[in-house]
């Protein structure tokens, strides 16, 4: 009795804490601001890239190349300004990128996945010293090379830029430009190249595509501009130049874009459906099991509050299947109570007193609750692994919420329901066996 009383205080305190954490749902508690919603609920883009490691610099290890790419993608995402992005490596050669709530997904994709190898090229000259033109009448180009400060021949590429490129609007033409600065090595190379190409065009190439070919007006050392871009292209290029070119080329192998309004709609619909389902469950429990049913309903409310507070604190990223996992776990939480109450009724019918029946009901239902929940944990573990190898965030969401839900349901069934029932029996408020659903 005394033990039950302390347990009651513990449960009430825990419930109060959980309630404080989740109300209102978007409040800030312990540094967490609101629930973290998955892409399917708030909209956004889910991308899985595959890196072509055969194209890496041979002196680099696979792991270094991947780490370099991921670091550069992180910089690009941060400069682009995405809240709560997720960038992680899957397996040896894949990268998962999640961009919640991105306004222009196509722009974001161009920004992130492009190798962004910038290089400067000179006109290719024929044996007669005149520029060579291909069949289509287009100018042919060769990468500009010059002697570095160590005397070695080097290609003039974006590698020698300072990471401070920015978009400016040109005064004369009122057009966007990307202004860049060379580092000291770049300045040495650029000076020689501009000297050599004075009054001639210098091609600026991004990933092998010509973006502009200005005529060199003077010998320049330390800085320059890139013109011929739209404002969004200029912004993208500036971010890419600052992050540096990707170490290996990437291709998208899985992509999922979800519209934000669809996400909000799904969230709203499934919340209402969940509430209706929960109400039906509670009604059923009370009608069928009477007084214990009321206790189960209270336990269920405490259970749901605890689970939501754990989701918020971890934080668990809530996805639609994740919510489904939570709701299925409610079914299992009810199951633990049903198991116990059915056992209890049997004990009452066999002539035990109320107190003895409560204890026997819990003790004898325990092995079934334990064994059935552990097998559910096994299924969750396998699902979690499967979700990881697929990069399927939906599958993982389901596994995580179901696991947390089942774990907490064991706690509420064996502590909350039990303590409440024992206290109720000991208080002698309700002694009629009919109230416990037994006719004798």
């Amino acid at each position, binding site marked *: 009795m005394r033990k039950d009383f302390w347990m009651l205080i513990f449960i009430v305190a825990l419930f109060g804490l959980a309630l404080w954490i989740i109300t209102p749902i978007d409040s800030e508690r312990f540094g967490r601001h609101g629930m973290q919603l998955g892409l399917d609920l708030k909209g956004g883009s889910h991308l899985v890239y595959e890196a072509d490691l055969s194209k890496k610099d041979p002196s680099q290890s696979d792991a270094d190349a991947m780490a370099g790419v991921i670091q550069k993608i992180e910089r690009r995402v941060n400069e682009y300004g995405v809240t709560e992005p997720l960038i992680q490596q899957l397996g040896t050669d894949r990268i998962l990128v999640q961009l919640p709530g991105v306004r222009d997904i196509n722009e974001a994709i161009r920004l992130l996945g492009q190798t962004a190898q910038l290089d400067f090229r000179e006109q290719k000259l024929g044996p007669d010293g005149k520029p060579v033109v291909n069949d289509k009448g287009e100018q042919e180009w060769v990468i500009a090379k010059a002697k570095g400060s160590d005397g070695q021949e080097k290609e003039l590429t974006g590698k020698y830029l300072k990471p401070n490129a920015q978009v400016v609007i040109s005064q004369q033409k009122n057009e966007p430009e990307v202004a860049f600065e060379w580092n000291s090595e770049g300045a040495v190379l650029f000076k020689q190249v501009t000297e050599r190409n004075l009054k001639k065009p210098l091609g600026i190439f991004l990933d092998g595509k010509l973006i502009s070919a200005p005529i060199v007006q003077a010998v320049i050392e330390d800085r320059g501009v890139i013109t011929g871009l739209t404002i969004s292209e200029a912004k993208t290029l500036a971010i890419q130049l600052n992050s540096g070119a990707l170490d290996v080329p990437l291709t998208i192998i899985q992509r999922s874009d*979800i519209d934000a309004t669809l996400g909000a709609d799904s969230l709203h619909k499934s919340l209402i459906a*969940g509430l209706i389902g929960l109400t039906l469950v509670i009604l059923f429990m009370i009608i069928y099991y009477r007084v214990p049913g009321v206790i189960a309903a209270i336990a269920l409310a405490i259970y749901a509050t605890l689970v939501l507070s754990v989701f918020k604190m971890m934080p668990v990223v809530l996805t639609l299947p994740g919510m489904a996992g939570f709701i299925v776990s409610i079914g299992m939480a009810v199951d633990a109570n049903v*198991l116990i109450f059915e056992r209890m009724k049997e004990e009452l019918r066999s002539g035990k007193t109320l107190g003895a029946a409560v204890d026997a009901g819990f003790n004898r239902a325990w092995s079934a609750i334990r064994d059935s929940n552990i097998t559910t944990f096994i299924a969750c573990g396998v699902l979690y692994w499967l979700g990881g190898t697929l990069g399927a965030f939906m599958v993982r969401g389901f596994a995580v919420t179901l696991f947390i839900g089942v774990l907490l349901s064991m706690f509420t069934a064996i502590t909350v329901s039990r303590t409440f029932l024992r206290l109720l029996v000991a208080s002698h408020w309700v002694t009629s066996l009919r109230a416990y659903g037994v006719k004798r």
Partner: protein
Amino acid sequence: MIDFVGKRYKFFLVSGVLILVGIISLAVFRLQPGVDFASGSAITIRFDRPIDQGDLRTALLNLGYDQAIIQKTPDGDFFIRVREISPGEKESLTTGLEDKFGKVTVLDFYSVSPVIAARTGRDAGIAIIVAAVFILAYIAWAFRKMPRPFRWGTCAIIPILHDVFIVLTVFSILGWLLGVEVDALFITGVLAVVGYGINNTIVVFDRIRDNMTRGISRDFATVVNSSVLETFTRSLNTSLTTLFVILALYLLGGVTIRNFMLVLLVGVVVGTYSASCIAPQLLVVWDRGEWGHFFSWLPIGKRKS
């Protein structure tokens, strides 16, 4: 009082017929593989004004998508399946449609390359087998004090595979009738069904274990039958409460999770049936050495008495 164990061959007959239907439908119709397994791109789009499906098909044809699968969703949106398209192709597809039909909202775009699709199918198969093996091992351990613990594990796993098979059957028929596809969420649902089904079976087995320890009868079949009866109300009530929630989500939860909920719906119903009508009966069949009866109709060998 219902004689669950005595009617065992009637239950086996029902399941046998279901499995036969399943074998035929899976052989003939197979499953409609979604983007996750077949690779390609799936787009769900919404138009500002009502669009005729035939017009949309013509428009896609003109854009060069002659193999497109088009479905109208219950909300009046369109679901389009095409080969895997690049970000650039996606843009030209939507602008192409906008030129013809006015404003287009892409609600959902999902694209999977063949590389990852092949791996998904393999991994999903591995996941189900690994789950079954681990569960078998755990049950054998949990029933280690009973005679022949692996027999309990096996008798728990067979009905689960039976449940999974029936879910596959239902989706194969739905795929044929309505073009319902199986995707990564479908696999999630199937594994949830595995978890849920084993849950029910274990509760019954736990009761048999309990009743055997208490020695309520010398006859194994009698022990099993009273255990099934004692747990029957609980099985029904638990399934009912779970079904309330699943049904509510199925009907009101929106298109995204409708098929997922359907997997759970079918799985919970079949799982409840097999936990009371198949799994315990298999234990009795094994205990009595009646396996031969399953094959007694075959012309080979002689019928036992």
